[in-house]
């Protein structure tokens, strides 16, 4: 006999997996179009992933470099502190001297400081035999090695005696060695010339890594006094690095050094200070912030291409809906509800963007790996970013597929069936 089926009692959503495989088959019918439609998403997600990864990589590089400088380090720079942490013409000022550094070291009021390293940093041409290079010249005292945790692979570092006697000696970084004397050679005992002065090489530092703006291997160390009097003819220092006894007393060290220098410079108002004190934390924060801003900016630009990809998906889905009007009419005449049709088309567009998203992640990672290698950065990409972008690409499929899907679902069955 004829079954009288209850009309309203039906399963809420038809078997999702089956719908997905139907959607997949529909997409496979027109492979070229499917590929082109997802290409927009591949490029968009690829760009976002590559940009975010490069941003994270450079942030990591900055952190690694600054960590390697020592985390209980504070740096005193000449020149006044300005608002917002931005200093004007710092380093151009000449307000700090070797005596200031000595005073910090010997003062009874300064109790939280372990060692003090006055420094002069300038670039100059260095000549050795027929080779020459433009590199950073660092006038330093023995404290430098301690403060910056510098190690030697050969010879010795600058001694107090060198500083006291304006010794004509130099300690060079591994990159300078390879540029001037060839990689792997040990030029201890040989001489090099800076600004017409001959200096005897007495030591070679161990590699500290780092690249670009803070390469610590491309440097020539000379005694502070030699740099001041013989090489550059100046009587100030360009910075004083101070190592606190521990990270816990960083703030105390900062205050003690600040008050001592204010007193020495006969200043009463800290706002008029002719020097500024920065901790590694400040530098790290500022550098991360810059890297962050940069990442956000690039990712934002990449997002635009993702948006364009989404519009491409919408376009294709609209065409698909028109093409399949008769199919939609038929499905509705067989009892498909609006919900069923919407789900069908949403799944189709989500598959497009999901696959596009996965391919985009692969493309983005490849680009980031190659680019990181090329510009000498450690590759870095966090998993949440990957998952998020795959999620976002699915979401784009949903959002940009919704309008076409609703359009399909709202067709009247008979009009759709009659559509030619």
């Amino acid at each position: 006999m004829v079954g009288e089926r209850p009309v309203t009692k039906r399963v809420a959503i038809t078997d999702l997996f089956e719908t997905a495989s139907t959607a997949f088959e529909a997409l496979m019918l027109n492979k070229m179009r499917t590929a082109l439609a997802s290409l927009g998403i591949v490029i968009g997600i690829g760009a976002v992933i590559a940009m975010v990864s490069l941003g994270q990589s450079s942030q990591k590089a900055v952190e690694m470099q600054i960590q390697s400088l020592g985390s209980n380090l504070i740096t005193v720079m000449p020149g006044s502190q300005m608002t917002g942490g931005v200093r004007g013409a710092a380093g151009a000022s000449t307000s700090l001297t070797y005596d200031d550094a000595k005073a910090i070291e010997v003062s009874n009021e300064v109790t939280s400081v372990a060692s003090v390293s006055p420094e002069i940093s300038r670039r100059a041409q260095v000549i050795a035999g027929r080779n020459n290079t433009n590199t950073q010249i660092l006038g330093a005292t023995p404290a430098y090695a301690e403060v910056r945790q510098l190690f030697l692979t050969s010879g010795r570092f600058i001694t107090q005696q060198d500083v006291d006697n304006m010794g004509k000696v130099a300690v060079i970084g591994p990159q300078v060695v390879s540029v001037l004397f060839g990689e792997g050679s040990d030029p201890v005992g040989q001489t090099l010339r800076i600004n017409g002065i001959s200096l005897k090489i007495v030591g070679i530092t161990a590699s500290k890594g780092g690249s670009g703006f803070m390469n610590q291997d491309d440097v020539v160390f000379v005694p502070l006094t030699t740099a001041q009097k013989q090489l550059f003819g100046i009587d100030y220092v360009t910075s004083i690095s101070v190592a606190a006894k521990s990270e816990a007393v960083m703030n105390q060290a900062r205050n003690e050094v600040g008050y001592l220098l204010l007193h020495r410079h006969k200043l009463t108002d800290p706002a008029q200070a002719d020097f500024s004190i920065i901790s590694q934390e400040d530098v790290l924060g500022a550098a991360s912030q810059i890297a962050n801003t940069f990442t956000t900016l690039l990712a934002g630009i990449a997002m635009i291409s993702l948006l364009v990809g989404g519009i491409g998906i919408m376009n294709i889905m609209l065409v698909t809906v028109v093409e399949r009007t008769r199919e939609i009419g038929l499905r509705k005449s067989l009892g498909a509800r609006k919900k069923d049709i919407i789900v069908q088309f949403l799944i189709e567009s989500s598959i497009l963007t999901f696959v596009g998203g996965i391919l985009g992640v692969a493309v983005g990672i490849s680009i980031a790996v190659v680019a990181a290698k090329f510009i000498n950065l450690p590759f870095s990409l966090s998993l949440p970013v990957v998952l998020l972008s795959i999620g976002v690409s699915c979401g784009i499929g949903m959002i940009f597929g919704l309008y076409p899907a609703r359009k399909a679902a709202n067709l009247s069955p008979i009009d759709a069936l009659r559509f030619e």
Partner: protein
Amino acid sequence: MIECDRVTKIYRNDQVETVALADVSFKIEGGEFVAVMGPSGSGKSTLMHILGCLDAPTTGTYVLDGKEVGKLKDDEQACIRNGKIGFVFQSYNLLPRLTAHKNVMLPMTYGGIPKDERIDRAAKLLSKVGLGDRLEYKPSQLSGGQQQRVAIARALAMNPSLILADEPTGNLATAQGEQIMAIFRELNEQGHTIIMITHEQNIAAYAKRIIYIRDGKVSADNGNHGRRKAGNEEGGNHGPV
């Protein structure tokens, strides 16, 4: 079970108004086998679409099993199309991408029938219409008669009480047409109400009642009409329609 009361359908395209149905009223009881006949353009298909909940009348009411269809929500109408009505189209309307088996399973997907039962039932229905060996054929690999039998199997998928067929044999040779009609007769004997449009007298002869439509109006309701009327008068429950 079917009650049309002054059903009118007017198509409005731009400035032109076409009256496809004008004040059509009739009743069809459960288990009847009705043929609808009439000249081309008289409004038969239009009527069938309204009976199948595919279209709504411009004015008038269509009551199916005590419910006025026009007042139901979209999803409720979809449920009726799915569970109560099996529609057989003149042009088969199978999904070309799907096999015969999957085409028959389609209404069951929307009816929430579990997958195993779907596969099983669809195969049985195809055997019933003589296509047990063609499950995995796509529509393009089947003859017209075979495609129409797939469409009938699909119409039966949810075991609907009402089967509507718009010229089911219109595109078929006589022999195949008679095969289809044999299936319809058997379904009618099992209790399904059948309403079909046809132009051919020999096809209409399978039906127990023939409604003639002309210019959007019922011009004659032959045979059964009188008998049913007489039956009603005997029962004394219903006045004349």
